[in-house]
């Protein structure tokens, strides 16, 4: 049985999480005795060359659909048509925001089931099963689908695996639903704040809502300076305008794995965790002893970051100077 997989793209490049989803779908399809077929919706930047590269990640066919970019419902139209009329029972999405919207809408469109935050898929008795961590990752549940099934991966859960193959490209014309045309992208992918580089830093000092205000980042910049690292931020504080989007970690931001990740005033929601959990050493400072971040930090300090961070900066400077 063939498996459908969505690939998100922007500015002529395919999203890394989508590449992982293609590889995961290819593995599942192979276990089901079929192939993985990818779907992309967009404009002229969907060239044969770009789409063909998905073959290297396991897709044998790529559907190219002309439609608006960055919006979920046109993709639901495309994938819904394929699932309802072309015999696909399963669709796979990589981690990210748009996949959640498309996957959920698609489940409703095709009368299927949907599982999100999936960390692994497998085939049992000729059917797809999905594993999903729940309750703050304290337990893992297994989802089985009665009929059609939609799998939405957790960010970075599916690893892209590259080989030498290329995929055939097929143009698919679909009619957009009336309501799909009633949302219009005015501006996509606006970068807010300075263009900072956090990906190359060996140490990252990250700040969250617990900083209290924008000025709280000054102390973190001092600490990052003492450590020879850079400053990162959570989505909440970026949305609030306290720090640049380019420094954001997590679901709709960057994924990092520095030697040291020091989280100050960050509760550790899943959406943040998925972007930094591969860090070698995680240190957390939070005044709430029940904050989830303490469950995956190597060193946790329960206390007031306003008292601890400046002293820590001084102590590190002194240590380095000695």
């Amino acid at each position, binding site marked *: 049985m063939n498996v459908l997989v969505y690939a998100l793209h922007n500015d002529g490049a395919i999203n890394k999480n989508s590449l992982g989803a293609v590889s995961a779908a290819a593995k599942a399809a192979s276990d089901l005795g079929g192939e993985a077929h990818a779907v992309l919706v967009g404009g002229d930047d969907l060239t044969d060359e770009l789409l063909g590269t998905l073959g290297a990640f396991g897709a044998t066919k790529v559907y190219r659909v002309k439609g608006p970019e960055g919006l979920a419902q046109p993709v639901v139209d495309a994938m819904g048509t394929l699932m309802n009329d072309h015999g696909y029972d399963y669709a796979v999405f990589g981690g990210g925001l748009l996949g959640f919207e498309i996957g959920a809408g698609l489940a409703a469109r095709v009368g299927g089931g949907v599982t999100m935050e999936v960390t692994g898929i497998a085939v049992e008795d000729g059917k797809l099963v999905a594993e999903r961590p729940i309750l703050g990752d304290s*337990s893992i549940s297994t989802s089985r689908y009665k009929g059609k099934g939609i799998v939405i991966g957790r960010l970075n859960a599916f690893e892209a695996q590259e080989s030498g193959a290329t995929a055939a490209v097929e143009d698919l014309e679909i009619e957009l639903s009336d309501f799909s045309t009633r949302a219009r992208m005015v501006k996509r992918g606006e970068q807010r704040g300075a263009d900072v580089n956090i990906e190359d830093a060996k140490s990252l000092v990250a700040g969250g809502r617990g900083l209290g205000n924008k000025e709280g980042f000054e102390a973190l910049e001092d600490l990052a300076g003492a450590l020879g690292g850079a400053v990162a931020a959570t989505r909440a504080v970026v949305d609030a305008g306290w720090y640049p989007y380019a420094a954001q970690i997590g679901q709709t931001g960057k994924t990092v794995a520095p030697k040291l990740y020091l989280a100050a005033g960050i509760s550790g929601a899943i959406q943040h965790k998925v972007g930094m959990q591969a860090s070698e050493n995680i240190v957390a400072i939070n005044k709430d002893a029940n904050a989830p971040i303490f469950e995956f930090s190597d060193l946790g300090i329960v206390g007031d970051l306003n008292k601890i961070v400046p002293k820590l900066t001084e102590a590190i400077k002194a240590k380095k100077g000695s």
Partner: protein
Amino acid sequence: MKICVLVKEVPDAAVEKRIDPQTGRMDRSGERNLNPYDTHAIEAAMQVKEGGVVPVEEIVAVTMGPDTAVRALHKAVSLGADRSVHLSDPALSGSDVAATGYALAGVLERESPDLVLLGQQSDDGECYTIGAVVAEHLRMPSLTQVIKMDVAEGTLTCERQAEYGYDTVEVDLPAVISVGDAINEPRYPSLKAIMGAKKKPLETLDVAGAGLDATRVGAEGSQVDCGEFKAPPAKAGGTIIEDEDTSATVDQIVAWLDERKLI
């Protein structure tokens, strides 16, 4: 304009969440709070109403859940909703996301709102998907995780953060919008509003009353079976320091970092 706000009762953050091993479902016995994300949706509705750009006739809170979920509706009304609708039926128990979205869409269809608002996620299920399911059934445009929403006659201009930065999207009404917590700072209800909440109209509907197809809801009507709960791979617990003497705490942190050659 009529605004419906979808709300949900969730476990109090202080209550440990668990799965009932017998049923494989979330044990909801400790629940007693309005989902914190939903308070942002109610506040967004209130700001549209108070903004005065488009006259708002009514804000209606809608929930699906057991008898206790009435408390979430009372809270929603105390925060500004004019009345509420409670979809409650033992037959709904065990509904998955798709079935829940179908059921809520059925209630919303009866109300024919111009705008449906909801919080970007529930505090318990950790999913951000119900809005997209509801929108599909209602055949309305939809956007999730919206952090800025400007309303005009017949359209909304919404901003949200997606994979590549901030998107600005124009959406025609009627529409389903899920809001992020950065969209506003919810107000606290006044004592008078809390006292008066129980007096506001509350309609209770069962599956038949809402005109729903009983074969599409509940565990039977759901398309996903969840089970076989297992523990994740054990991770060695980290060291925890309770900061009492900050100088001593800082010495400990520095020693820890130094041991790992991180300084």
